[in-house]
C-alpha cells in the first residue's frame, strides 16, 4: 500500500533531498552527474569540469538551483486488465505460468487468424473512463501500430490511435501528510485499449534472446496524463491513486512488481516564468512508487544542474533507465525523431459502439470510489491521516463501513482498525479479509467498553483472541467472567483486604511515599482479576489511604 511505502520513506529523510544521493559515493562531492564506473558508449562526450565542493555547500547549491526551475511531469501508465481471457482470443492468462503454454494461432499471429474482441475489455475500459471522469467516445475504433520486434508476433500492435475510448478526465487525490499533504487534481488526456506484447528475455551470452508469448494479446488500458505534476511525490501519488482506482473497480491487480501496472514518466524543466517547455526526457524501468518519486527527483536535479552550468543543450530528448541499485538514471537510447508507426484502422475489427443505456448501467454499478470515500470520511470528522489510511485499501474501508453500520462510534472504530488491528495484520501478514474478528463484533467490543461493561484493558485482551479465533464479544465476556466491577462497595472491600495485607506499605505511604498508590492499585487489580473499574478504584483507594473512610 502506498501509505506504508511512504512511511518507509519517512524513515530515510535523505531521500527527500536529491543531493544526499551524491553523498553516498564519498565525503567530497563532485558537481558532475557522471558515474565513473558505468561508462556506456552513448554517454555525453564532453567531460564537464570536476569541482570539489564540501557536502553542505553543494546541498544548498542544488536546492537553490532546483528552485529556479519548474519541473513539468507527465506519466503514461499501462494497466493490465484482470479479464479471464486475452483481448482478442480465448486464451486464459495467468501470471507465472510456464512459458508458451497459453497460446493459440490468434495471439501468435499465425496466418489466417483473426482477432475477436473480449466484451469484458470494453466493460472495464468504460468503468475506468467513468472513474477517471472522462468523456467517453460512443464510437471508437482500433488501429494497427506497426513496428518490428521479436515479442510482437503480428508485426503490429492492435491499439487505438486517433479515437480512444475515453478522453479529457482528471483524478483528485490528497498528498500523504508526511510530504506536506494537500489536495491535487491532475488531468487525464486519454485512455485507450490496446494489447500487450510477449515477454522478451535477453540471454546472458550475447547473440540470441528468448520470447514467451503467454502475455501476448493480454488487454491493456493505456492512461496518458496531462503534464500536470510538478514533483516526484506528486507523480508517485498519482500512480498510487491509479492503483487505488483500478483495484476499487476490480479491473486489475494494479501491481507494479508483477507488471500489471507500468509507469513511464516524462520529465522536463524550464526556468521559472518561462512559457516554453524544456526538452522532454522519458524514464523507464520504474518498479515501485518510491522509484517513481526518486527517479523524478534525481532527473530534475540532473537537468537543473546542467542548466545552471550553461549546458542545457546536453539535455536531449531520449529514453533513460532508472537504475535502482545506483539510484540514478542512465541513457538507454536517444530518440531520433518520431517513430513512424504507419497507423491505419484495424480492418479485422468492427467499430466499438457504446449505447447511452450501456454506459448508464455501468455508471450505476460503480462502487464508491477512493475520492468519494475520502471526502465522506472527512465529513464524518476523521483526521486526514485517518482518512488516507482507511480509504487506501478498499477492503479496509469496507470493514470500517461495516463496523459503523453495526453502530460503532466513528473515531473509536477508526482507532481500533488503524491501531491494534492493523498491527495484528502486519505481524501475521494477513489482509483484513483474513482476520477472524467480524466488523459486527468489533462494533460490539467498542460498545461494551463504552458502556462500561468491560474495561478498556480487558477489551484489548479479548481483541487478540477475537482476531485469532473469532467468536463473539458477549460469549467471551461470559465465558471468562470479564464484566467490569463497578460496585463501589465491592471495590471497597477489595481495597480494605489489600491494605490490611500490606501494613508496611501503608505506613510508608502515610509517611510520604505517595507513589505507593500505584502498588496498591496494582494489587487490587490483581485481586479483581483485572476487572475493577480503574477510575473508581483509584478514587476509593485514595480516600482509604488517606484515612477518610
Amino acid at each position, binding site marked *: 500500500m502506498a501509505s506504508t511505502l511512504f512511511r518507509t520513506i519517512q524513515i530515510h529523510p535523505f531521500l527527500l533531498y536529491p543531493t544526499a544521493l551524491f553523498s553516498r559515493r564519498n565525503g567530497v562531492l563532485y558537481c558532475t552527474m557522471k558515474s565513473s564506473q558505468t561508462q556506456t558508449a552513448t554517454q555525453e562526450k564532453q567531460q564537464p569540469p570536476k569541482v570539489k565542493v564540501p557536502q553542505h555547500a553543494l546541498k544548498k547549491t542544488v536546492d537553490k538551483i532546483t528552485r529556479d526551475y519548474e519541473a513539468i511531469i507527465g506519466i503514461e501508465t499501462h494497466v493490465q486488465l484482470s479479464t479471464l*481471457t486475452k483481448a482478442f482470443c480465448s486464451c*486464459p492468462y495467468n501470471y507465472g505460468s510456464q*512459458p*508458451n503454454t497459453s497460446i493459440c494461432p490468434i495471439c501468435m*499471429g499465425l496466418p489466417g487468424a483473426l482477432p475477436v474482441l473480449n466484451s469484458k475489455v470494453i466493460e472495464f475500459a468504460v468503468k475506468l473512463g467513468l472513474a477517471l471522469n472522462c468523456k467517453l467516445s460512443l464510437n471508437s475504433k482500433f488501429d494497427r501500430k506497426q513496428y*518490428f520486434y521479436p515479442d510482437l508476433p503480428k508485426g503490429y500492435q492492435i491499439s487505438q490511435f486517433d479515437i480512444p475510448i475515453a478522453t479529457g478526465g482528471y483524478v483528485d487525490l490528497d498528498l500523504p501528510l508526511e510530504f506536506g499533504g494537500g489536495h491535487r487534481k491532475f488531468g487525464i488526456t486519454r485512455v485507450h485499449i490496446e494489447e500487450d506484447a510477449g515477454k522478451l528475455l535477453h540471454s546472458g551470452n550475447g547473440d540470441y534472446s528468448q*520470447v514467451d508469448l503467454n502475455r501476448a494479446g493480454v488487454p491493456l488500458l493505456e492512461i496518458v496524463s496531462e503534464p500536470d505534476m510538478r514533483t516526484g511525490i506528486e507523480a508517485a501519488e498519482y500512480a498510487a491513486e491509479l492503483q487505488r482506482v483500478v483495484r476499487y473497480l476490480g479491473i486489475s491487480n494494479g501491481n507494479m512488481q508483477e507488471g500489471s501496472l507500468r509507469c513511464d514518466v516524462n520529465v522536463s524543466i524550464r526556468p521559472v516564468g518561462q512559457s516554453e517547455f524544456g526538452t522532454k526526457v522519458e524514464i523507464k524501468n520504474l518498479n515501485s512508487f518510491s522509484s517513481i518519486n526518486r527517479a523524478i527527483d534525481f532527473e530534475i536535479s540532473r537537468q537543473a544542474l546542467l542548466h545552471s552550468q550553461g549546458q542545457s543543450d546536453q539535455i536531449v530528448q531520449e529514453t533513460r533507465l532508472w537504475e535502482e541499485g545506483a539510484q540514478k538514471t542512465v541513457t538507454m537510447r536517444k530518440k531520433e525523431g518520431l*517513430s513512424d508507426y504507419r497507423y491505419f484502422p484495424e480492418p479485422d475489427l468492427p467499430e466499438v459502439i457504446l449505447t447511452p443505456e450501456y454506459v448508464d448501467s455501468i455508471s450505476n454499478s460503480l462502487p464508491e470510489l477512493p475520492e468519494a470515500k475520502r471526502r465522506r470520511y472527512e465529513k464524518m470528522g476523521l483526521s486526514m491521516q485517518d482518512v488516507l489510511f482507511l480509504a487506501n485499501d478498499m477492503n479496509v474501508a469496507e470493514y470500517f463501513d461495516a463496523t459503523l453500520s453495526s453502530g460503532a462510534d466513528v473515531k473509536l472504530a477508526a482507532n481500533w482498525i488503524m491501531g491494534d488491528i492493523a498491527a495484528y495484520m502486519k505481524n501475521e501478514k494477513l489482509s483484513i479479509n483474513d482476520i477472524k474478528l467480524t466488523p459486527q463484533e468489533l462494533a460490539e467490543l467498542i460498545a461494551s467498553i463504552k458502556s462500561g461493561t468491560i474495561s478498556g484493558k480487558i477489551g484489548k485482551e479479548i481483541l487478540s483472541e477475537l482476531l485469532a479465533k473469532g467468536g463473539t464479544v458477549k460469549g467471551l465476556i461470559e465465558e471468562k467472567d470479564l464484566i467490569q466491577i463497578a460496585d463501589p462497595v465491592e471495590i471497597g472491600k477489595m481495597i480494605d483486604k489489600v491494605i490490611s495485607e500490606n501494613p508496611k506499605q501503608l505506613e510508608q505511604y502515610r509517611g510520604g511515599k505517595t507513589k505507593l498508590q500505584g502498588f496498591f492499585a496494582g494489587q487490587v487489580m490483581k485481586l479483581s482479576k483485572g476487572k475493577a473499574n480503574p477510575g473508581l478504584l483509584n478514587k476509593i483507594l485514595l480516600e482509604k489511604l488517606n484515612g477518610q473512610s
Partner: protein
Amino acid sequence: MGSRALLMLTNFNFKATVSSFGSASNPFFLIKNNLRIRNFSTKTRSSLQPPDLPGLAETARISLAPNEVEEFAPKIGQVIDWFGQLQAVDLDNVEPAIRADTEGDNLREDVPQTFENKEALIASVPSYEEPYIKVPKVLNKE
C-alpha cells in the same frame, strides 16, 4: 470479415529480409505523417506525395537494391495515383466516417478456452529452445 489485402502488390517481386506473419498488408499510399489526425477526408486536393521508397523499404524491413528502387518507385507511384482518383470526390458536406463498414460489435464472452493443438503451434516455430522461442538479439525497437 477478411483482411483487405492489396492484390496488385503481388505483381512485384521482392525479397523480404524479415518475414512477418499475420495478415500483412502495407498500403503504402496512406499519409505518412501519423501526427495529422484524420486529415485525409478534408480539403487536401493537391497531388499526393511521391513515395519515398528507401524509407518505405526500411520501415517494412524489405531490402531493395538500387536498381529495384528505381524500378519500383514509378510503379508504386502509379498505385498511389490510382487511389488518388478519390481526391476528386467532393467531401465538403460529408461527415468523416470512423470506419469503412457499418457493422457493429462482434464480441465474445470472457470465457477461457485452451487451444487444443499447442504441440503443432510449437512445432511450427522455426527456432525453439524449450520453453522459449529463440530469436536474434534485437535491443532497439526502431
